């Protein structure tokens, strides 16, 4: 649980968001709010839309209707004359994405660079941070995730847990105000999951706004302020982890939790 008081200001607000892939409705009228400083876990069966929803927040995927605002602003859209959303070309808004850090299931570290280069790269070329300062930021971020000392290694020389921690450092080096995690531990061997969850919990306690798509109910229970259950493109239940896990109201939530054991 976050020990830093949450503000009532909303970091991310999703209102009536819908999205279709061809004829399939992947997100169906989703409305969610994520307060600043909060840690939210999104759980649900595969195909529930939880991976899609997180990618819509930083506009890796476009939405078809509704609005998503981050600190009150649209990302990658502008308002048309009738108040409708008009999509902007990627090169106009890509730099704003730097404020949102994302950590992926498959780590996605740049194979052709060392650990240090991976973490320094974006601050230098996106945020135009001078090399020396970028290096300091990178080393600090790596230290924070417990990966200092491996900066000359290549990703292929690291274990999954180490790679994921470097990926978290890479996102943190950009000094984001929001961190998105897409099933960060799903690809890890069980004994490596703990080291990544520890880093995430530490981040949560430091007051970062975090949204995690995960299957790790233990982490949800212990480290998160809010829990959202999605299925079939809809939000079926939301509340504190205690509320949702101990006394789920929705039938499908109960089924899902029972299946996870």
């Amino acid at each position, binding site marked *: 649980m976050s020990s830093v008081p949450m503000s009532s200001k909303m970091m991310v607000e999703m209102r009536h968001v819908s999205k279709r892939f061809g004829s399939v409705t992947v997100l169906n009228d989703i409305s969610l709010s994520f307060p600043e400083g909060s840690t939210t876990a999104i759980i649900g069966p595969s195909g529930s839309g939880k991976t899609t929803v997180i990618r819509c927040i930083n506009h890796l995927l476009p939405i078809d209707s509704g609005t998503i605002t981050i600190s009150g602003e649209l990302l990658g859209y502008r308002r048309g004359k009738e108040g409708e959303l008009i999509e902007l070309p*990627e090169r106009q808004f*890509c730099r704003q994405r730097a404020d*949102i850090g994302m950590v992926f299931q498959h780590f*996605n570290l740049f*194979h052709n660079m060392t650990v240090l280069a991976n973490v320094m790269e*974006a601050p230098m070329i*996106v945020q135009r941070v001078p090399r020396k300062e970028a290096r300091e930021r990178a080393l600090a971020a790596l230290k924070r995730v417990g990966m200092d000392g491996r900066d000359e290694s*290549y990703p292929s020389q690291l274990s999954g847990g180490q790679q994921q921690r470097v990926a978290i450092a*890479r996102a943190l080096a950009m000094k984001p105000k929001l961190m998105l995690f897409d099933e960060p531990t799903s690809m890890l061997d069980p004994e490596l999951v*703990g080291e990544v969850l520890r880093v995430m919990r530490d981040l949560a306690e430091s007051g970062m706004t975090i949204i995690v798509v995960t299957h790790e109910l233990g982490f949800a229970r212990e480290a998160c302020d809010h829990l959202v259950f999605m299925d079939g493109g809809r939000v079926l239940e939301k509340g504190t982890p205690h509320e949702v896990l101990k006394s789920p109201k929705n039938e499908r939530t109960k089924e899902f939790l029972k299946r996870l054991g």
Partner: protein
Amino acid sequence: MQTAPFPERVATAAERSARTEGAEPKSPMEQAPSVRLAKTYGFGSTAGAVIVVALMGALLASTLINPAFGWPVFAEYFFSEPILWGVLMTLVLTAISMFVAVALGTLLAIMRMSSNPILQAGSALFSWFFRGIPVLVQLIFWYNFALLFPNIGPFPTNTVVTPLIAAILGLGLSMAAYMAEVVRGGILSVGAGQIEAIRSLGMTRAQGLRRVILPQAMRVVLPPMGNELIALLKWTSLASVIAVSELMHASSLIYSRNFQVIPLLLVAAAWYLVVTTVFSFGQRYLEQHFGKGAH
């Protein structure tokens, strides 16, 4: 944060047995007499082998007995000055044409994958055209470029487009069309996850291409490019018909003077064989070092 130490390396069998030597009796496998596997060959395999030996024997006999091979003449010209200059020119022509082909081919690959339909179409058109016309025809065309455009700006075309330039254009442009496909394959082989990471960090498409995608793609395409380089080396022999003084041309000049056709052809053939063999060793290194993805 206590996690299990990452094992640095697994003990080899020798180390493991050294540790236990003398401590335990030997296993049944170590006690049994060694078994030698007898190799047997079937009828087809044996018959084929006999035929190969017979043919090679006949070939060898012919080269030693038949005076028309002209081995003394071969020996006379193999290290002669015009031939050596020819070899050098072949290597230079290969290098420059390859450089043009790779640079242009990479540009074409990027155009082909652009969201702009005109760039896409332009690249596809280029590939279709330069892959559809034989290299020989293209070379002769460039050699006669002055017939189309007698002057390029203030300069007479024939001084700008020399036989060497014509050869570089013909070989380079033609090879670029093939390189485009190789590079495009390399770019596509870079995982989609890399692109997601690039976008989520706020990099533009151009930054991502330059810093992440192309470097990774190049590792993948190095082995096929090595093969293309060896092929290009052999294609340079076509430049002999447009009077570029590379190896084939040098050899043909000599035999048209002294009528020693076979020995001089053998000189050229032998040099091509030497150079392609040397390049093949380099190619094998490329395949081992860069083959099949990451480190």
